[in-house]
């Protein structure tokens, strides 16, 4: 017979709580440790290479074609070396004595080659090499030992088996000389050192960290509330930092693919200035060189706001900008710090609205959201900016709930967060307008705050661009092209492509406008709207299709690692989003913190729909929507009062749950039925399709 009297239950509870605290501390410690441990891999990509100097030359595959070599420094002593034409051999004439430098190992990687031969010679072209290394797989980093180091003065790289076309230029995506192989193929770690870094960081660590995160979420409800309230901002900031770094190490692993520096040197930085991942970096570089916020001489960004380039400039100033690769790493580092600081600040403010375990759970889930922090583009910043905006709104809600007068400083803070978003992307404007009216309809003079901020950003950017473009475009000139691309993001018989080149040709074929001008954007916008009116069925299907993709998980954009996949394998994204949306709807229907929920969830209604008509780009722009959904919907689900509120209004609750169930079951069958229904899809009751400049059928 179990004795439920006596003192043992209290003792059991005390012992249990102590154990939970220990487990919580251990789990948090492991999460932090795992992030800090891989930080050098993320920032440097390899242990320090030896500062060996060399001159590079190459032999073209066709003897008559001249061959040149370009070298990009990744870190001191580690380089990306590439020829400009297809080459049969690339030779490095070493200017340093390998033995004196202490070099024992060559590390090399070439994404375009399967195997590679390294001839180590004395500099005599007619003499055979004194040593040869055959590297069977150089798609990932491979090592070759240096044998007779005193005699070696040249290293010749001969491609043996290309992965792609043999006439592509020869590129060593990574080359360095090292004193020891330690840390090159596997990270030096104290814990479980025998497990290869690839499988360890790609699968095992993320899975374990995800489980430890789950443990802390449950354990947080048993921790002393006062302690957790104080610790939340600091701990969540540090934990978020570690998770961000760990995810970068997973996505850009020097052991199983390529490190971040190598990725930038061999990818985005090779593209023409102005592409997605290098535009901000080029602008920032030129800005710091005193050449204005331009991409190249005389060219400003026509499709972007200036905020991200300014952010990159700050990153360069803070963390270094000696090379463009350094600039990229500095920017990524600032992404991570900004994201973590936003989570920490949010946790501090959220502690005023919700209980500490709810804040911990919410903060940790935000830290675990899929991210794109490794990509140097404005979209990478939208989640932390949205988080700052939600933080400001939480502060204001707190003041409103307590019926306190809202100080000017707080409202300035609120609108500054919106302004920050606007400085990077203009899609915030409708939401900003509605939220401003909602917040200030009783004190309308405060509406001057957002108005002044919008005008100051838009006019200054428009005026700055006008110097170069000779037209005044206060935001971006990419709306038209985005609307046109958005038209074709749903399966249809319309055979229209979507690319910058096509858009440019199309504008020039039908107008005399510069494709990057506001006038061209206006023309394209009118033509896109003409398609909507010509084919209203297609418009309905397009918006419904993108809406479904949004709620099925696209609203959490980014690159999931096993940290997220280990959860999504158990519960896929659609049911999670539907649960949160149902929670929101229940709050609104039952009146449970209705104002809070509506205010915090505004991006769902006022930002996401933008991308149902514009270019959604696989959900790349939804960052703010996903985080707003989490912040608005999760806390009520973890509060007892929410369920009491539902119990008090059973009919409304039942109605919402029934609608949610119906939507869950019917959403895709309805979509498929609409898509198959050509009579509806290609119905043109209003305008003649022949008048459209965009319509072409497969």
């Amino acid at each position, binding site marked *: 017979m179990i004795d439920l009297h006596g003192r043992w239950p209290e003792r*059991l*509870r005390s012992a*249990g*709580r102590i154990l*939970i605290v220990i*487990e919580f501390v251990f789990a948090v410690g492991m999460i932090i440790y795992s992030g800090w441990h891989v930080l050098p891999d993320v920032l440097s990509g390899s242990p320090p290479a030896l500062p060996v100097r060399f001159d590079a030359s190459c032999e073209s595959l066709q003897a008559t074609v001249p061959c040149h070599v370009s070298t990009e420094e990744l870190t001191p002593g580690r380089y990306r070396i590439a020829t400009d034409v297809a080459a049969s051999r690339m030779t490095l004439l070493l200017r340093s004595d390998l033995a004196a430098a202490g070099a024992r190992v060559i590390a090399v990687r070439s994404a375009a080659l399967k195997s590679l031969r390294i001839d180590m010679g004395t500099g005599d072209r007619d003499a055979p090499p004194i040593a040869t290394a055959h590297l069977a797989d150089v798609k990932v980093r491979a090592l070759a030992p240096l044998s007779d180091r005193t005699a070696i003065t040249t290293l010749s790289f001969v491609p043996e088996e290309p992965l792609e076309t043999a006439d592509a230029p020869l590129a060593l995506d990574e080359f360095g000389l090292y004193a020891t192989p330690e840390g090159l193929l596997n990270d030096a770690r104290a814990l479980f050192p025998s*497990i290869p870094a690839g499988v360890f960081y790609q699968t095992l660590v993320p899975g*374990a960290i995800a*489980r*430890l995160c789950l443990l802390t979420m449950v354990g947080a409800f048993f921790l002393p509330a006062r302690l957790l309230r104080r610790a939340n901002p600091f701990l969540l900031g540090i934990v978020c930092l570690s998770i961000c770094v760990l995810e970068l190490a997973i996505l850009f692993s020097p052991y199983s693919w390529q490190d971040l520096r190598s990725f930038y040197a061999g990818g985005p930085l090779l593209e023409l200035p102005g592409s997605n991942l290098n535009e901000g970096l080029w602008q920032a570089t030129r800005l710091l060189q005193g050449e204005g916020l331009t991409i190249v001489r005389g060219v400003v960004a026509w499709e972007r706001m200036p905020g991200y380039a300014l952010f990159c400039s700050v990153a360069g100033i803070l963390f270094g900008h000696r090379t463009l690769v350094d600039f990229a790493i500095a920017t990524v580092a600032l992404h991570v710090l900004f994201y973590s600081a936003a989570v920490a600040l949010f946790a501090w403010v959220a502690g005023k609205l919700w209980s500490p375990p709810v804040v911990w759970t919410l903060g940790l889930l935000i830290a675990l959201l899929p991210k794109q922090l490794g990509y140097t583009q404005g979209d990478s910043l939208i989640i932390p900016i949205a988080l700052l905006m939600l933080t400001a709104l939480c502060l204001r809600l707190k003041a409103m709930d307590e019926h306190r007068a809202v100080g000017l400083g707080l409202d300035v803070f609120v609108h500054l967060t919106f302004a920050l978003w606007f400085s990077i992307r203009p899609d915030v404007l409708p939401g900003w307008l509605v939220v401003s009216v909602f917040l200030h309809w009783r004190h309308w003079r405060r509406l001057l705050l957002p108005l002044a901020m919008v005008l100051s950003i838009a006019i200054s950017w428009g005026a700055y661009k006008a110097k170069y473009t000779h037209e005044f475009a206060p935001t971006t000139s990419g709306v038209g092209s985005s609307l046109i691309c958005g038209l074709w993001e749903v399966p249809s018989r319309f055979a229209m492509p979507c690319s910058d080149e096509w858009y440019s040709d199309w504008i020039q074929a039908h107008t005399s406008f510069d494709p990057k001008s506001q006038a061209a954007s206006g023309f394209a916008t009118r033509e896109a709207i003409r398609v909507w009116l010509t084919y209203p069925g297609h418009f309905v299907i397009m918006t419904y299709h993108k809406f479904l993709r949004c709620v099925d998980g696209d609203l959490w954009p980014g690159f999931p690692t096993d940290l997220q996949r280990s959860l999504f394998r158990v519960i896929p994204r659609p049911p999670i989003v539907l649960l949160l949306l149902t929670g929101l709807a229940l709050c609104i229907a039952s009146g449970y913190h209705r104002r809070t929920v509506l205010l915090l969830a505004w991006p769902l209604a006022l930002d996401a729909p933008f991308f149902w008509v514009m270019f959604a780009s696989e959900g790349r722009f939804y960052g703010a929507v996903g985080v707003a959904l989490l912040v608005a919907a999760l806390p009520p689900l973890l509060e007892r009062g929410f369920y009491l509120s539902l119990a008090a209004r059973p009919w409304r609750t039942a109605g919402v749950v029934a609608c949610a169930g119906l939507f869950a079951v019917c959403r895709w069958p309805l979509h498929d039925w609409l898509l198959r229904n050509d009579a509806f899809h290609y119905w043109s009751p209003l305008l003649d399709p022949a008048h459209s400049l965009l319509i072409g059928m497969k």
Partner: protein
Amino acid sequence: MTLSAKLRTRWPDISVAVVAVAGFWLIWSQYSNLSALSWWYEGTVRFREGRDLPAADYDLTTLPWQLARPQAFEVNQGTLALVTNTEPFAYQAYAIVPTRGADAAYVRFDADLAAGGATIGMLQAGKWLTLSSFQKAGPFSDSISARLGSRGPLTVMIANNNDAGQSRLTVRSLRVYLRK
């Protein structure tokens, strides 16, 4: 007070205990899993490098070979000669051995492929744990290893790996190591 009422009163205490124990189990299971994996990888590296190899638990002559449908099969003077049937990827010969509580199994083999292709691997409960395939005529050596997921017996399998039909090979040595 009924037992259920008492349990309801004590629910906070019970939930604390359940969470504490579940948390401990979770941490321990993670550690134990990683630790076992690390041990296995360490063993695999040693095995591939041929360091500290104990005596093999089984070799070609002591493995209890059973035949599927090979055209010819003969173990003679420590070598195994096999001519497969014409089914491209069919099992040819296998040996089922008890694992005796081992956590990992390693197989090292040297073979000569005369024609076609072959696969040598390990199965447990009907599923491949690991395998090594070769289709280039000539000598071929490899070392394969696997963690043993359950306590069922281990099957060492030789299969045809030639979509054109028959293969011919001689296995000069095949040793099985079981490690606890």
